[in-house]
């Protein structure tokens, strides 16, 4: 008979095996130290795992930019396309093979400037895909010019005297354009982001997740942030409120803050399904 005290049962948390979904021989990645893009990728991979998606059935499509380099590092069917054009490429893939899970990775410049027209039309069609917009308020890849989400007054290599252009609210635009799932997350709230991406992956229809992440190298330095962590604290933590807490807060506490979480979710007919059920059916019926 053992005399040892009964062992306290500890919950053993297995570290998540990111390598299961990565192409380890394509690493290291190109991202700078402190860049938010890697944090977002990790949240995405955990969400994919949780959703039980099969690697062979995932197609990841991106445009051009630092964020758009993501597909090169993951072990799916991957396509790095042209600046701004990820959504139409992805539309062709999804429409041709509706059984595949399509995930689009796009920067704020990629999605909303050069690809802005594609963005609103992809939302309008409500074609089934998850679109992650990496909102770092800059053009990282080309060295820190202002983007369609740069705040008024911010400095960039092309707005040395302060940006005079008001930024887009990506979520409002997605919703107004017809996306049936619209959410926002940040790299700072990585666990919450994983959950939000999971919800976007399990939604049927156009799911847009606006992800606030930081470019310390350009936006950070040009706007006098001391470090990547300080950027995350100010821009991602202090500047945002989860929609569930927002109800409890007085209006003055919400002033100038962006909402996180699922901001809009409705069930509407999905594009590929509509095509099958209406177009193909009518075209092939005998009458």
């Amino acid at each position, binding site marked *: 008979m053992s005399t040892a005290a009964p062992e306290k049962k500890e919950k053993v948390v297995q570290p998540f095996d990111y390598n299961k979904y990565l192409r380890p021989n394509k690493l290291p990645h190109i991202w700078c130290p402190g860049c938010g893009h890697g944090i977002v990728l990790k949240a995405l991979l955990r969400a994919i795992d949780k959703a039980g998606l099969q690697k062979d059935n995932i197609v990841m499509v991106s445009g051009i930019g630092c964020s758009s380099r993501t597909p*090169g590092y993951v072990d799916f069917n*991957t*396509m*790095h396309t042209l600046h701004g054009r990820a959504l*139409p490429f992805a*539309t062709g893939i999804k429409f041709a*093979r509706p059984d595949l899970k399509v995930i689009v990775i796009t920067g704020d410049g990629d999605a909303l400037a050069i690809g802005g027209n594609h963005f609103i039309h992809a939302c309008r069609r409500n074609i089934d895909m998850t679109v992650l917009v990496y909102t770092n308020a800059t053009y990282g890849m080309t060295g820190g010019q202002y983007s369609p989400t740069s705040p008024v007054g911010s400095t960039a290599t092309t707005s040395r005297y302060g940006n005079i252009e008001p930024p887009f609210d990506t979520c409002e635009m997605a919703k107004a354009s017809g996306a049936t799932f619209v959410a926002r997350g940040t790299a700072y709230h990585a666990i919450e982001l994983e959950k939000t991406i999971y919800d976007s992956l399990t939604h049927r229809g156009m799911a847009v997740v606006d992800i606030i992440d930081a470019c310390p190298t350009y936006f950070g330095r040009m706007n006098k942030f001391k470090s990547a962590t300080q950027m995350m604290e100010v821009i991602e933590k202090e500047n945002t409120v989860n929609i569930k807490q927002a109800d409890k807060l007085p209006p003055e506490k919400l002033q100038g803050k962006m909402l996180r979480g699922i901001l809009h979710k409705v069930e509407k007919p999905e594009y590929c399904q509509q095509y099958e059920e209406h177009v193909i059916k009518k075209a092939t019926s005998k009458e």
Partner: protein
Amino acid sequence: MAENKKKLLQGNEACVEGALYAGCRFYAGYPITPSTEIAEGMSVRLPRVGGKFIQMEDEIASIAAAIGASIAGLKSLTATSGPGFSLKQECLGYACLAEIPLVVVNVMRGGPSTGYPTGPSQADIMQAKWGTHGDHPVIAVTPSYVQEILSETVRAFNLAEKYRTPVIVLYDEIIGHMREPVTIPAPGELDVVDREKATCDADDYFPYDERYEIAPLAPFGAGYRFHVTGLNHRKDGFPTNDPRQIDLNNRRIMRKIDNHREEIWKNEETFLEDAEVAVFTLGSTARSARFAVNKAREAGIKAGLLRPLTIWPFPDRAVTELSKRVKAIIVPEMNLGQMTLEVERCSKKADVIGIHRVDGEPITPAQILDVIKKHK
């Protein structure tokens, strides 16, 4: 065997027939005169065979979607005219470098800019070759008759599938909108080529495998999980900065077309055996030229016609050989001298005389006959 069906078709409708015959199952487009009937036809016909039709928000999105569908395994088509062809150029280069089969139809209208939407031209011949940036391979086919729009569209798909590259079908508004009796070929009557499928183990699969001149292309979702990019890449499809790898791949995509020019070229020769003066032209202008050459023969002039059905790669050899046998090569074209330059480049001895028209009117047989008479 099923009897061939005869129909009275417009050129653009014949293009639809050709695409479907070739097994096209995806169309993405944006309306533009004088090509719109292709989109309209595909929107009706594709769903009947389970194919996909989508009207995109612009021409860039259209070609992007068509490339996406092609990498997903479907034979894909997009059609447009001048302004839309300009917009498609960046994606066209992507398909060249990523080696994704695709057919792009350009029904040529008057330009530059919005130009003359309802008038014909042949002014996009050089754009078809040089429109996208960087050195890149180009195949462009140029039918002259409505029946030929059908068969050349089939050939375009075959070339695209075989060589893993975008192929351009280039014809002018005149034959795009002309109606002629067309025989719909019975199944099996024309060759239909499908891209080579990957059969190896996923670990051994390289989308740009240098062991092949043209590596098999696996569709997405078939277990191969490879990478596609518009950056210079290695055999595994991943980007590279290695000068040797970049050079290798840039040269290989050119070579895969250059080495097969004999197979890709297609010329029609009329009365060239004893010709002393030759006409070199394509599209609807070749119809006027044929008429003019017949008239010249009636008048005892030894005239002939060389009509390329493949304009890119340019039929260098045929033109060079011809130039050694004739006194003059007359090049009528509805532009200000795009083919004439190429003929001059290839011509060894003969005089090269261009006939140019950019007023939105066709070049008439009489115009060509006049020049033949001057140079007989």
